């Protein structure tokens, strides 16, 4: 061994130690680099999982406290809430896609009815708006619970199988998940107090137009007002507030179109749009088409009604991030709402004639927004 170091040109103790350490490090990294990397990623995921758990537990606790404060239940609702947080939705089969929209629509109605019944049973003193808010709050807690369980599942599975590719995929989406977790926590706080959220921008625009006019109920959880704008007959519709509610805009638009026997010159839809990185929150954009998110059933109904009478549809979108959409409404989004109102007036005067009928639909969760 000493001869090897003599060949390498070093015979002092320090040089020998140096060579040995370098050689050992080289061997360790050469043989175990993958394992070290996987271990580092797993530790990172585990740390984030711990944070998700803290958020999930906080959301659960806030749900229990809010339900006790608002609903004044006679019994402790903790056990029922824990049971609620385990609910999930089974999608209808897509093997035969024909009629799947109506299957989805029916199952979503059943789900909503079941959730509302559960909340009413847990919070007997809550009024209709508070029941809607509590339902939204419990749904946010349910989503957090589901995210935690799914991340934990993949983490434990990756750890058990030492699968590099599962770890990489989980590590890659972790920043997005953590941002979503933060947003959900904002949503939980907003829902527990009934504050308007960013997603309510469309409903806010409709409420601004409807304010001071008589509103009548139309379809499930939807209201409509007839508002004269620039000599046009404008039907403004939104979900019924101020409880947390998205309503059924598809059904509402279809009913209004049928009431007008198809003589509608234009439909304007206002909704929140997920902005791209670099875009400013509260900026508005115009689009053509039905601007509505969700599972797709409401969009289908609107497009169906449009096609039947060949009604042009325009959209005004208020930009915001996915986090802002489910967190309490930011001031920039309120500014965006004012811009959208101006854009609607402009669109109506530019694209329609006096005497025409126009439908304006404010899409989004109307929590904390009346009419």
């Amino acid at each position, binding site marked *: 061994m000493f001869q090897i170091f003599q060949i390498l040109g070093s015979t002092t103790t320090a040089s020998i130690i140096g060579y040995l350490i370098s050689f050992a490090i080289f061997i360790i990294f050469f043989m175990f680099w993958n394992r070290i990397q996987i271990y580092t990623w797993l530790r990172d995921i585990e740390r984030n999982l711990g944070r998700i758990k803290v958020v999930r537990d906080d959301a659960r606790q806030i749900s229990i406290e809010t339900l006790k404060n608002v609903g004044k239940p006679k019994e402790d609702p903790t056990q029922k809430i824990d049971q609620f947080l385990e609910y999930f939705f089974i999608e209808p089969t897509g093997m035969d896609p024909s009629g799947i929209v109506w299957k989805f629509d029916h199952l979503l109605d059943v789900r909503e009815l079941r959730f509302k019944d559960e909340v009413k049973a847990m919070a007997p003193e809550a009024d209709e708006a508070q029941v809607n808010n509590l339902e939204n709050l419990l749904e946010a807690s349910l989503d957090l619970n589901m995210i935690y369980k799914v991340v934990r599942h993949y983490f434990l599975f990756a750890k058990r199988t030492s699968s590099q590719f599962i770890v990489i995929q989980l590590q890659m989406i972790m920043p997005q998940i953590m941002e979503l977790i*933060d947003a959900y926590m904002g949503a939980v706080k907003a829902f527990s107090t009934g504050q308007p959220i960013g997603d309510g921008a469309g409903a806010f625009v409709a409420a601004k137009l409807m304010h001071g006019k008589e509103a009548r109920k139309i379809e499930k959880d939807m209201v409509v007002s007839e508002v004269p704008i620039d000599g046009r007959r404008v039907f403004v519709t939104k979900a019924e507030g101020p409880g947390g509610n998205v309503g059924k805009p598809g059904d509402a638009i279809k009913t209004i179109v049928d009431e007008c026997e198809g003589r509608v010159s234009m439909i304007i839809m206002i909704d929140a749009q997920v902005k791209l990185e670099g875009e400013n929150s509260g900026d508005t954009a115009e689009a053509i088409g039905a601007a509505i998110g969700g599972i797709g059933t409401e969009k289908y109904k609107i497009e169906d009604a449009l096609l039947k009478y060949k009604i042009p549809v325009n959209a005004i979108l208020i930009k915001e991030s996915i986090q802002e959409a489910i967190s*309490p409404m930011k*001031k920039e989004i309120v500014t965006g709402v004012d811009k959208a109102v101006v854009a609607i007036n402009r669109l109506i005067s530019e694209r329609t004639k006096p005497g025409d009928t126009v439908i304006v639909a404010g899409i989004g969760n109307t929590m904390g927004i009346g009419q």
Partner: protein
Amino acid sequence: MSERQRTGTGIGVSTIFLYFIVLAALFVISIWFLYVGLTSYVSGEFETATVMALIGVIGLGISLIVLRRLRRRIMVPLQQPLIPLNVLTVEQCDKCGFKNVKKFERGDYVFKTAEKCPKCGTLTTITSIYYEGLVKKQYQ
């Protein structure tokens, strides 16, 4: 997992303790290498002094980086509890235009009839509810 649940940090108490022992050992060894390096330098063995000092500095660097990471891992969830957002309610008088911005209270909603206007006595309306400023990252 129960131990981790108690700490709420994703790592258990025993793991944290083990980390600190390993770090302390690494720190002491690094200091010893630096000391040997210094004595070698004084006695004129420059080559030995350089290698020993290098090992000592690398060891110290690693222990400090790991300590900083460990501290962040333990402290972040504990230091950043739920911070309520400063949500504001704007009340406006339709008649005289008086505007009052107050802290949001449970039960406030947009277009709710609010308190009387201090200027003209007409009932005011809540015209918007929003929060200003950046959201504090709570769990990152």
